[in-house]
């Protein structure tokens, strides 16, 4: 389809919006209400452009003007976001049209009419769409000679999100987000006209995915309360990396200032999280800069005392006191990187220890055959024994996307389509495409079929349906063209051989793709390394029997029978029992590679956080090897990655931004007597009130505080107005 923007001719696919046509032409148009993953609504009226189309004569020929089809211009400017371009359409932006330039400047004046001039104290300053666009397209002055609207400036919508009602420009992104993405009608406009404001009557926004509204707010109206007043946008070191709190592997940006992690925001990965992340991933980062273990600890006279690494290595050497290195069990957390796993595998080979394990993991490995995009575009999804909210929250959003018809906005050279006209407000949902078999979870209310079941019975019951609901679910699976089966902890924990056979049978019969949710953030990757107990070795479940053990970032609350070395970021309960504690780094501070539940290799990058003498597992294992008196083959990231290339046949040094799904070869399994209970929010992730950026009163206390305002010793609310 030929479209002409400011005189530049383009070839665009049918269905493209005017807004994307403009960007595709390398031109610019301001917008506030449009968002790539939300329905275009044409509310902010910033993207008005002039447009016109050729017309046909009754005989089917074009109405000509000279040797060109005559362009009939619309008498008034059109909102580019809600206008679908048609063949031969012409568009003029502010660059070539004075009418558009004045329209946009005038609209900016209206938008700024009631917007407070508190940019110097606004967290959004420097990264604010309104600020940027006002600079680019505004008059520079306002002719509005009246008082601006006054409203609440510190209104907590929840513990995590705080609303400044004065700054709101009513773009409705947040309202649409809740309705369209997590499918929750928990935030909406109240009142109408110039009095309109957003609020919730649910006693606070539900935890889950609420934080995303702070990313999409084009102004500083909705702010991350954990990061509030922690720094200006230009002061932060921004590190694009991957979240390792769960196996989804969402793209995030870690913002640090003065070596402290201040904020996590979502980043786009069209294949994984689109632009959404969960609240744990966004707000649960406080542990990275709180109460960190920054120096090694050595037990002296029964007490752990600070030491340096040399002293710690010495203490280990002495503690192991000539023990066979093969007697040292090696255990690591399944959120470790592939490189770290490779280093541990190599060390285990070197010492010959049969006692190697990673945790959490399941006793079986089910290889994923479905991607997250497959889930979103499926025509039937069956969730077996999973609580997505605890195991892989963003997977829940992709399931909900499937219920809305799985419309994925197309990609242009300028990025994801900004206004996909196929996305509509209050979309029709298809609950009949979703069956949930297992325990009750948040997904429950979205599902057309719900069958309470536990453990392994979930699959067994689907294979031999004995109720109408189950028969309906089995029928759904059988009749679907692109079904996906999601397996969660409840089934995978208890999976045995007959499970694998049953699953294989089901897949063969229905053509379903399978997406097992990994037990740990990188269990899917680590399963391809030999990190399970060998013959005669002790699994993690038998830690207590070990003559000596090294635990990296695991906190079972127990120690080994003999000498115990703990490598962790915090002084955990287990660390308190250890003989030597070595400081570790968090997932935000690592370079390396993780593998998400789809089997997608994703890069981790190192944020500029103050970690004291903390060291990642590779360096720590090097030190451990020194204590053991062996010389490890992997001594750094480079050699680890070289080994990965050898072991897994994949080059992880230069992964594409959206990651890479690559076959990683055989997996290693071993039975375990432990059960992994997925829990997204760990205790230390909870932002305690005193850790929070702003000391806002909670909702109940709010009115009381207003009354007390000004009294000595109370909180000052509304200080800047």
């Amino acid at each position: 389809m030929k479209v002409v923007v400011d005189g530049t001719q383009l070839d665009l696919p049918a269905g493209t919006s005017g807004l994307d046509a403009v960007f595709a032409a390398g031109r610019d148009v301001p917008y506030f209400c449009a968002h790539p993953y939300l329905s275009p609504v044409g509310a902010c009226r910033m993207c008005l452009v002039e447009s016109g189309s050729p017309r046909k004569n009754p005989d089917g020929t074009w109405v000509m003007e000279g040797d060109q089809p005559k362009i009939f211009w619309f008498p008034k400017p059109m909102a580019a976001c809600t206008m679908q371009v048609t063949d031969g359409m012409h568009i003029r932006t502010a660059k070539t049209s004075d009418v558009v330039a004045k329209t946009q400047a005038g609209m900016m004046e209206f938008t700024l009419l009631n917007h407070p001039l508190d940019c110097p104290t606004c967290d959004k300053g420097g990264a604010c769409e309104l600020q940027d666009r006002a600079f680019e397209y505004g008059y520079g002055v306002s002719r509005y000679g009246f008082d601006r609207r006054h409203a609440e400036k510190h209104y907590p919508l929840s513990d995590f999100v705080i609303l400044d009602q004065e700054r709101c420009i009513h773009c409705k992104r947040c309202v649409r987000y809740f309705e369209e993405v997590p499918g929750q009608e928990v935030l909406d406009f109240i009142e109408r006209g110039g009095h309109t404001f957003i609020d919730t009557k649910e006693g606070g926004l539900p935890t889950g995915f609420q934080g995303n509204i702070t990313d999409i707010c084009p102004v500083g109206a909705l702010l991350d309360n954990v990061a509030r007043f922690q720094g200006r946008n230009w002061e932060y070191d921004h590190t694009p990396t991957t979240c390792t709190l769960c196996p989804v592997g969402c793209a995030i940006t870690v913002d640090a200032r003065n070596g402290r992690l201040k904020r996590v925001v979502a980043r786009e990965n069209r294949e994984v999280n689109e632009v959404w992340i969960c609240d744990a991933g966004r707000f649960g980062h406080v542990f990275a800069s709180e109460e960190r273990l920054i120096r090694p600890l050595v037990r002296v006279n029964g007490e752990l005392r600070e030491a340096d690494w040399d002293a710690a290595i010495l203490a280990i050497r002495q503690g192991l006191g000539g023990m066979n290195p093969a007697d040292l069990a090696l255990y690591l957390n399944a959120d470790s990187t592939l490189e770290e796993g490779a280093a541990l595998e190599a060390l285990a080979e070197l010492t010959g220890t049969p006692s190697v394990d990673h945790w959490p993991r399941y006793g079986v490995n089910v290889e994923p055959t479905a991607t997250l995009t497959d889930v979103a575009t499926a025509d039937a999804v069956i969730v077996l024994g999973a609580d997505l909210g605890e195991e892989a929250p963003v997977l829940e959003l992709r399931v909900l996307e499937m219920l809305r018809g799985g419309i994925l906005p197309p990609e242009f050279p300028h990025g994801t389509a900004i206004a996909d006209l196929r996305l509509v407000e209050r979309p029709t949902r298809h609950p009949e495409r979703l069956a949930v078999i297992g325990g009750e979870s948040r997904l429950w209310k979205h599902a057309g079929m719900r069958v309470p079941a536990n453990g392994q019975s979930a699959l067994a019951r689907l294979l031999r349906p004995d109720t109408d609901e189950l028969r309906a679910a089995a029928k759904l699976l059988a009749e679907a063209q692109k079904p996906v089966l999601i397996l969660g902890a409840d089934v995978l924990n208890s999976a045995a051989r007959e499970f694998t056979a049953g699953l294989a049978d089901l897949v063969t019969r229905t053509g379903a793709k399978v997406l097992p949710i990994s037990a740990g953030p990188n269990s899917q990757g680590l399963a391809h390394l030999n990190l399970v107990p060998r013959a005669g070795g002790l699994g993690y479940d038998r830690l207590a029997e070990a003559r000596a053990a090294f635990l990296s970032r695991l906190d079972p609350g127990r120690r080994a029978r003999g000498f115990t070395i703990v490598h962790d970021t915090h002084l955990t309960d287990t660390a308190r029992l250890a003989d030597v504690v070595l400081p570790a780094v968090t997932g935000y501070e690592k370079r390396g590679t993780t593998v998400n539940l789809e089997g997608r290799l994703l890069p981790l990058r190192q944020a500029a956080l103050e970690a004291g003498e903390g060291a990642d597992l590779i360096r720590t294992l090097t030190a451990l090897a020194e204590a053991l008196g062996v010389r490890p083959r992997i001594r750094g990231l480079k050699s680890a990655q070289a080994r990965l290339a050898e072991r897994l046949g994949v080059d992880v040094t230069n992964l594409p931004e959206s990651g890479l799904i690559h076959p990683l070869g055989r997996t290693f399994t071993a039975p375990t007597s432990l059960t992994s209970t997925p829990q997204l929010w760990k205790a230390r992730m909870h932002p305690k009130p005193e850790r929070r950026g702003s000391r806002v009163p909670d909702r109940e206390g709010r009115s009381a505080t207003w009354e007390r305002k000004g009294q000595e010793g109370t909180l000052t609310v509304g200080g800047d107005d």
Partner: protein
Amino acid sequence: MTVAEPAPKPITSGKDPRFAPTLYAHVGQPGSWTLDFYLRHGGYQGVRRAFALGPDAVIEEVKKSGLRGRGGAGFATGLKWSFMPLNDGKQHYIICNADESEPGSFKDRYLLSEDPHQLIEGMLIGGYAMRASVGYIYIRGEYVRAAERVWAAIHEARAAGLLGQNVLGSGFDFDLQVHRGAGAYICGEETALMNSLEGLRANPRLKPPFPAAAGLYGMPTTINNVETFCAATQILKYGADWHARMGTEKSRGMKLFQISGPVRRPGVYELPLGTTFRELIFEWAGGPLEDIKAIIPGGSSCPMLPWDDKTLDTPMDYESVAAAGSMLGTGGVTLIPKADCIVNVTWNLVRFYAHESCGKCTPCREGISGWMVRMYEKLVRGHGQPGDVQLILDMSDNIGGRSFCALADACLGPVLSSIKLFRKEYDTLAQTGQPMYPARSRWRES
């Protein structure tokens, strides 16, 4: 005497000896709202004829009659009806827009309360033509009596087999429901009305998709004004030719004109389209009670016209009023007294639109609801400054044609026309702080 023979000259005056009021034939008569009364006066003959003609012929009949939407926009009704898809297997809906809230309009209220069966019959005809089996009548919340009378009429009609399964043995199933509004002018906008009916905030929806493709509950839907459906009843009863004989070439038929303001007999008059303002104001309404300087020709959003011979001799049809620089709208004429400050008068209307703005789009929410109304208040309170009027004009330029729906443009109707006609009053007030026409008492003692 009858009007059966073809008339050489179209009927364009209420005084024409061939003209008979039909829409309001029974309005004001005792018991006119009952089924019994309606049937005694020839009721439900139009729908019987429709059933005899068949649905496609009904649409043709309405097209031939030249009927145009009486809600304000004047879109050809038959053409609108023909936009509904045929045999698509979907549930079709028709909706009657009885959210009459344009200031100066009050014709539908009496149709609803005094002759509800005429509306029911019109909706039966429309539903039959457009293959809709369900109709909703969206009545503004304040019209309590109207809603009661319409409900009562629906129950009567159901009991008499005029609504429900197999209406009058035609094989056509149709039922009606009343949905009451709750005070929002924007619900007069058809897509906002559908949102309201669906229990949502009444923000206007994006078009396309147009209602005929995806309207109420996403199904093909057509919305017509009360008067339009009632006119369809009369067209089917007396024939398209009868209807087409009234009015001007492009504006055919009869219309309910309303007149308010300082006039001897304010009220509703059923006249042929093409009747002049002069006839309505002087001969029907008895003339103004005081000196007049302008008229609002068709409801508050229509630009004001000056009080002069040219305006008075303008025929009230869609084209002539448009040519005079305004709109026929709903046919609600309001007289603006000379002795009232035009800025104050306009402020009242701007305040109305500011109050009714839904808040969805920026130019209306901020421009009208936030800024324009304050500019007027500033002027009226005597705090105006030179340049204020120019600023209002420039703001209007940034609002006009830039908003999501027509509400903001509707507000600009009185604003721009009053500035154009009475710039001197504006400038005097802005520069001196004193209105040319000071406030005065208007409330009558008895």
